[in-house]
């Protein structure tokens, strides 16, 4: 069992969720509520990582993370380090690759909140933030839960993008999914089997817990 790979995977998945959820809530709500020209284009951009081959996405990220590229340069001035083949790099790549998994369930959930509930909240004296906090977020909670579950589980399983951007540096960018591939390449089937089973259990448990939680709201029955 490659414990450092497991640790990298869990850290990556948790941090991706932490950074992506607030973004997913804001972006999802905006896409659900706003009406503007070019909205379809925005939605397509968000959904792109779903259909793009991970190697293609990884290739473009690798290009833009380079020291001569704008993103790489910006990161350099901000932190003094590079992005390619670092944990920060795969985290940034993971944020991009998981955007649709975080945004889409939340956007669908916001779309199902009737607009007159917002208006009723305003007429009850609640400002926009209070309305979001007390009315909208409790109602879109199942969407947020499934967005977190999908993002977490998908990050654990991401392979192509991470390999392109991060390589397989032990303790830094080698995730469990990559470690399994390495084990198989090294004909260590038992090691690969252990880690594959672990990934299966973790993913299944995450999804099970989340979907179980989402179905337990008394007010949604009846």
């Amino acid at each position, binding site marked *: 069992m490659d414990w450092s790979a497991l640790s990298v995977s869990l850290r990556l998945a948790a941090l991706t969720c932490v950074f992506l959820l607030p973004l997913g809530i804001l972006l999802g709500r905006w896409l659900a509520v706003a009406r503007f020209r070019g909205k379809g284009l925005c939605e397509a951009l968000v959904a792109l990582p779903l259909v793009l081959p991970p190697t293609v996405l990884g290739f473009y990220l690798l290009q833009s993370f380079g020291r001569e590229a704008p993103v790489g340069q910006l990161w350099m001035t901000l932190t003094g380090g590079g992005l390619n083949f670092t944990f920060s790099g795969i985290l940034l790549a993971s944020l991009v690759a998981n955007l649709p998994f975080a945004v889409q369930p939340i956007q669908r959930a916001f779309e199902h909140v009737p607009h007159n509930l917002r208006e009723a909240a305003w007429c009850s004296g609640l400002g926009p933030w209070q309305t979001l906090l007390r009315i909208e977020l409790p*109602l879109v909670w199942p969407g947020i839960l499934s967005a977190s579950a999908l993002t977490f589980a998908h990050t654990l399983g991401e392979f192509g993008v991470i390999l392109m951007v991060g390589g397989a540096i032990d303790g830094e960018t080698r995730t469990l999914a990559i470690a399994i591939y390495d084990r198989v390449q090294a004909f260590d089937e038992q090691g690969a089997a252990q880690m594959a089973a672990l990934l299966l259990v973790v993913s299944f448990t995450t999804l099970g817990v989340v979907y179980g939680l989402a179905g337990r709201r*008394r007010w949604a029955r*009846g």
Partner: protein
Amino acid sequence: MARLQVNVQQAGPIPLDARFGCLPGELLALVGPSGSGKTTLLRAIAGLYRPQHGHIECAGDTWLDTRHQHSLSPQRRRVGMVFQDYALFPHLTALANIALPLRHLPQPQRRLKAAAWLETVRLKGLENRYPSELSGGQRQRVALARALARDPQVLLLDEPFSAVDQVTRRRLQRELARLRQHISIPIVLVTHDLEEASALADQICVLHNGNSLQQASPETLFRTPASPSVARLLDRHNVYQGQVVESAGTHRLRWGNVELDVATGLEGLAPGTQVAWYLPPSDIVLHRRGRPSHGERENPVAASVDDMLVLGSMTSVALRVPHGDVLRFDIATHAARRNDLTPGAAVHVSLLAGGIHLMPGQGDDMTPNEKRTPI
């Protein structure tokens, strides 16, 4: 003055040209067919819709003044709004729904006050029910309590009885009438149900295509509609065209081949003037066979029964006069039977002079004239 005064105009996308007012403790019904702008006007009062031009004032505060780029947000207008489908927060219990507008109070007081409102609308014991666990009528009452809990300066009701069955509707209407004793703010009710409006409202404002055609008490409105359009929107059909004539020194109204006495309104009109007139159905008196009846000498008109429709204890009668116009009125079914009313039968009626209402200068079509109708 704690009155509500609304005056809004815009060319589009929803055309509006409406002016109406409502005194504290008074219930004003906005009545009109669907698409007449009723709900839009209600939303404009609440601050949920911003018309291009207008002035809205309530309890001495200016809520909207487009000339000075002034518009208060819904949060700052202190309106109690009951939405058509109630818009209860599904994730909050009945008590929490009502407590939400009370967030300025400390927690224990908030609960007490919300519980008191729940009791006022007779829902004590249902504090912890979620909206999905309440009946339609109970939901409406929670919505009403939530609207009132904010201690609003105006209560707005958007078709509040349309989502429940007939029996519940009657009960809720009685409930609202009872509750009004405790409410001393203007109440604006949007409805397309004329019966509901005349039963509940002190004042009715008739709307058509965003225009406010007339505001008056139900009695005044049903007896003296300002124009043929108002009469038609109020489902009043006895609107005719006549001509002012002078005979033996007095002005009379010629209608087909008969000349009618009119109690008021003719003096100022020159002979020869074409004028639209209306007669409330209650002022058409059927002459009994063989026996003189009250007012028989007043404007007697010969007619034949054109059509009869028995609706339970009342019968709807249409009489055709020789020159083709049709008089409609309702009489008790037993009276229709006693008088042998059958299609084709010849009858005599009196058109009471005091009921004839002249609408000079009003065409029979929906003309821009209506915009000048005094409100």
